[in-house]
């Protein structure tokens, strides 16, 4: 992607921290990322992977050791926080407790020297947008967690930033509220067409919300792509394991197919078509829903566990040393029992070669 066409472009950003023990931690290790104008980008990764550090570098709350950050083609990495046209929704909401909801929202506009009567109108609009009209005179402490979250959102959006940064904004909400807020955030993003960058460690949330997902591990971005693409074609073992559930098998790949130890030959057409570049000893990942187990008295594997997850049946089987997980809709299927012998087959084009 052309860097000048993107809303936000991050180039080779590195940030190290000193640990109290005197060691060095690479929070960000030469990270580059382009975020398209008006898109919803999710930074996903386990805790301590650097995703929040990148967000703070973009906001200006942290300064990178090296690298560049540009907002619509203009460098912002040496600009003080208060000059950057980006705003953040903090994980803790960080609402000013001594101000009312309306004063909280007005604060950012006052900093921009917006005239008072316009501020009044904008505050009302912002409250309306997050369905909190009429609560402007309340104190944050008089609101529920979900309402505080909305105020934080309204406060940041009122400034009409070029990019809105969201730091695990939903992690403090309970599951049901979180689902509601996810679609709410999607709606706000579509309506305002502001570029959203959201940090989360919850892969379901990332999949549900992002136009693009950037997966972080140990200070690096290991894969960027649309949620579906990242899910179905993980490029590394880490991504395969971190997003959803995956079976990672080791085998030897040649023109006929993949020979997996204790499973035998897996035909070539079970692999995703363009993996021909790889050959020799490889790791492949396959999602449980693409694995089927048939009860077969002479099958290679033995069922070790059967459970129900939602409407799905999840079956674990062991073929000598290799453990395989299968997940199929439970309706109309004769459930296997623990100890049953089964044969394993994979759906066409479902195996993808991953880096170790």
């Amino acid at each position, binding site marked *: 992607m052309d860097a000048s066409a993107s809303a936000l472009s991050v180039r080779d950003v590195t940030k190290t921290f000193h640990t109290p023990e005197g060691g060095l931690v690479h929070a960000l290790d030469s990270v580059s990322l382009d975020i398209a104008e008006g898109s919803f980008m999710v930074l996903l990764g386990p805790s301590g992977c650097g995703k929040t550090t990148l967000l703070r570098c973009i906001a200006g*709350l942290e300064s990178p050791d090296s690298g560049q950050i540009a907002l619509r083609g203009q460098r912002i990495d040496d600009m003080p926080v*208060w000059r950057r046209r980006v705003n953040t929704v903090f994980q803790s909401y960080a609402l000013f*407790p001594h101000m009312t909801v309306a004063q909280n929202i007005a604060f950012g506009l006052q*900093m921009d020297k917006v005239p008072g009567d316009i501020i009044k109108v904008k505050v009302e609009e912002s409250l309306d947008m997050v369905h909190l009209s009429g609560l402007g005179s309340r104190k944050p402490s008089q609101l529920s967690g979900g309402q505080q979250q909305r105020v934080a959102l309204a406060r940041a959006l009122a*400034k009409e930033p070029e990019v809105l940064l969201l730091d695990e904004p939903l992690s403090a909400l309970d599951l049901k509220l979180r689902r509601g807020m996810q679609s709410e955030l999607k709606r706000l993003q579509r309506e305002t067409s502001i570029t959203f960058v959201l940090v989360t460690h919850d892969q379901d949330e990332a999949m549900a919300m992002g136009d693009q997902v950037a997966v972080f591990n140990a200070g690096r971005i290991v894969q960027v792509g649309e949620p579906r693409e990242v899910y179905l074609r993980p490029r590394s073992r880490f991504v395969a394991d971190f997003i959803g559930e995956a079976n990672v098998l080791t085998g030897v790949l040649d023109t006929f197919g993949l020979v997996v130890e204790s499973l035998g030959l897996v035909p070539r057409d079970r692999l995703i078509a363009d993996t021909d570049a790889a050959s020799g000893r490889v790791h492949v990942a396959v999602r449980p829903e693409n694995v089927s187990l048939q009860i077969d008295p002479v099958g290679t594997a033995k069922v070790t566990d059967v459970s129900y997850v939602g409407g799905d049946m999840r079956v674990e089987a062991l073929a000598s040393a290799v453990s395989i997980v299968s997940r199929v809709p439970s309706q109309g299927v004769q459930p296997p029992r623990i100890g049953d012998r089964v044969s394993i087959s994979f759906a066409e084009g479902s195996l993808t070669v991953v880096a170790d």
Partner: protein
Amino acid sequence: MKAPWSATARQRRQAGQGSWWSGLPGVVYLIALVLLPLILIFIYSFLSRAKLGVGVKWQFTLTPYTELLYSESLSGGRSFDPTYLQIIANSFWYAIITSVVCLALSIPIAMWLATRPPERRTALVFAVTIPFWTSLLIRTYSFIIILNDNGPINGFLKGIGIIDEPIAMLYTPFATVVGLVYTFLPFMILPIYASAERFDFRLAEAAYDLGAAKWTVLRRVVLPSIRPGIIAGMVLVFIPALGSYLAPELLGGGKTSMIANVIAAQFGASRNWPFGAALSVLLLVITLLVLVVFAVVAKRASRAAGRGGWEALI
């Protein structure tokens, strides 16, 4: 009403609740050492001067109070005398300067303390209390050594050639203020620190993020959040500073009298116990009025802040 020691009352008592007589030592202490002396002073202030000036003559009079405003000439004529009003104004002036200087010094110190790593904070707060380990008298005397014409400050300034003649610092109003600020600084730092420690620095980040520059963040987010500590500190500094005795006596050289010095003189050299008592009652009334003012300010601040408040300070 049932007696507090009846069976039902005993049963109603909750775990961790002491019985009524466990507060007795405190009550006895307060009556014997605070209330009784106050009553005594109050009574003395309406009595006549003893013949030799020591003690009082048990005869009712309002003379001690008229003496506050009028002086009596030998011929018996009365004329308005602003001497004591001037001293009260002086005391207020010193107490205000002391509080303001302490406040200006304490906010950055307290913020600095609150932003240190938690394991170092304890040691640093402990360091703030080091002056309390030695008697105030000795510490005040030490400023005579520091501030005098041949002291280290004048020595240093002469040494680097800024001055030829020593700057007269000791026995000036300046010395009094230095002594007062030194004495009361910890009483301002500690409550402000207690508030600052609880301050959520993520709020400052949010303010920066919303476009506020440094001073705006301090004024609009940090200061309102530590206001309870500031008000508590002002009470703890202003009121004792108003009744200070040592610093003006030892460092001001008696030239910069505050009300406490005049009271001491009435019970001592001037031998006018009723007048000393009347001045004491006046100081007490002024102190109470100041407390009421602070309480009103705190209440308004807390109403504006929607939390904390006067109750949180005490």
